[in-house]
């Protein structure tokens, strides 16, 4: 009879045998019952048509898996067999894991896409509008990546009024998805971010995989700030693109889609200045026309005509009045002249009447001795007539 072993003995032997024999193996199989425990450890089953094996992947190691495994995904897992004596069970302790083929990732992609679509995460009704003139754009990408450099230079050229707020994160490899989520959440805690661009430059499907992760999709979905997804090149589509409020073919294009072009703005301002000046002249001229037409309207002509009529009447009156006054004046002036003449004449006549004579030489009255010229003719003026004395003739 062979040796009698305790349960613990045999379990110990099995453990030693299995763990020594299967220390470094690769297993291909389909994942099922995948659970990511809050502790960070992963628990799942690998199976094929004939068998299944329980698997664990510890936190710290599963960080290095660039994708989150999904049920039904065929993977190649590397690790070792371990035995857990208290339960008498064995399991596969996974050290690393990769998709069994590129098709596996595609399938996972399609599956997640379908799931999120069914949940309504891609609903067009829930897409937030992208602001036309963002003041601050949050950027979720690697600060040292080419994508960020491109975005900076395009923003500076197109719309330097904007401020870029970068929440830098890993965009590929271990922990990338988690960092992207944290950056998105962090930007959502800011109060003044108008828009978030989540993205990275081109790369392989593996490189871009973080943007196909469910946690990233859900972070984008719950963001209160509109998000533009800009991952890889034109041809690359990710789950992020579908959840985001807008998909940009590249990070550069994302800036172009979210900022106005400065040259357009200059154009608009110039157009405004020119066009509105024109318009202002038009308005002023319209008002001028209005004023003119009011002035020349019948209603305004009436008082004008009235004034004209009255003014004519006034002219007539004035003319007549001035004539009257003028005639009277002239008459009085003439009368005065006549009276004056009479007055003068009467004075001399009075004297002559009394017998005086006066003497005129060259039509001048000679009043003094030294005004008299002996050789010249003169006239003696009497009250009743003149006597001409011809001295010159007598001399001859």
């Amino acid at each position, binding site marked *: 009879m062979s040796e009698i072993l305790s349960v613990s003995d045999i379990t110990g032997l099995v453990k030693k045998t299995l763990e020594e024999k299967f220390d470094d193996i690769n297993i291909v199989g389909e994942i099922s019952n995948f659970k990511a425990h809050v502790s960070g450890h992963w628990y799942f089953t690998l199976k094929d048509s004939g068998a299944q094996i329980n698997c664990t992947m510890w936190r710290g190691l599963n960080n290095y898996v660039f994708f989150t495994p999904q049920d039904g995904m065929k993977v190649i897992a590397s690790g070792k067999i371990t035995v857990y004596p208290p339960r008498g069970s064995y399991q596969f302790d996974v050290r690393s894991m990769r998709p069994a083929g590129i098709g596996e990732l595609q399938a996972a992609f399609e599956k997640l896409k379908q799931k999120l679509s069914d949940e309504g995460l891609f609903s067009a009704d829930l897409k937030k509008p992208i602001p036309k003139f963002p003041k601050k754009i949050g950027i979720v990408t690697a*600060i040292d990546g080419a994508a960020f450099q491109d975005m*900076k230079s395009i923003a500076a050229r197109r719309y*330097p*009024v904007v401020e870029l707020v970068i*929440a830098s994160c890993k965009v590929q490899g271990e922990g990338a998805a988690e960092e992207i989520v*944290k950056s998105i959440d962090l930007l959502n805690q800011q109060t003044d971010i108008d828009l978030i661009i989540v993205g990275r430059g081109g790369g392989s499907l593996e490189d871009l995989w973080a943007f196909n992760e469910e946690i990233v999709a859900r972070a984008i979905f719950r963001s209160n700030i509109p998000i533009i997804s800009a991952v890889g090149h034109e041809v690359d589509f990710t789950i992020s693109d579908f959840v985001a409020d807008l998909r940009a073919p590249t990070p550069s294009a994302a800036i172009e889609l979210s900022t106005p072009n400065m040259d357009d703005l200059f154009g608009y*301002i110039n157009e*405004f200045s020119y066009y509105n000046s024109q318009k*202002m002249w038009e308005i002023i001229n319209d008002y001028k026309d209005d004023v003119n037409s009011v002035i020349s309207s019948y209603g305004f002509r009436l008082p004008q005509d009235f004034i004209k009529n009255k003014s004519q009447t006034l002219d007539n009156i004035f003319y007549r009045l001035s004539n009257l006054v003028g005639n009277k004046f002239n008459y009085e002036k003439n009368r005065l002249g006549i009276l004056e003449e009479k007055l003068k004449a009467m004075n001399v006549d009075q004297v002559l009447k009394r017998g005086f004579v006066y003497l005129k030489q060259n039509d001048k009255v000679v009043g003094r001795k030294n005004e008299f010229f002996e050789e010249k003719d003169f006239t003696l003026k009497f009250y009743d007539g003149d006597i001409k004395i011809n001295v010159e003739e007598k001399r001859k």
Partner: protein
Amino acid sequence: MSKKKESNFEESLNRLQEISNELESGSVGLEESIKLYEEGIKLAKICYSTLKDAELKVTELKKQLEESIR
């Protein structure tokens, strides 16, 4: 200081558009038109110089991010 300019830019541009529309509609009186026009010219000048003088500002939230991860 430049922050205030930034926050005014969109409003200024929108106001410019509004003024343009109001002048175009011809529904405002002469005095109001002149006021609008003057306001527009002022705004256009501000917008123009804001654009011309602007320099892209980049800030990083990295430190806060690290804190929030811890």
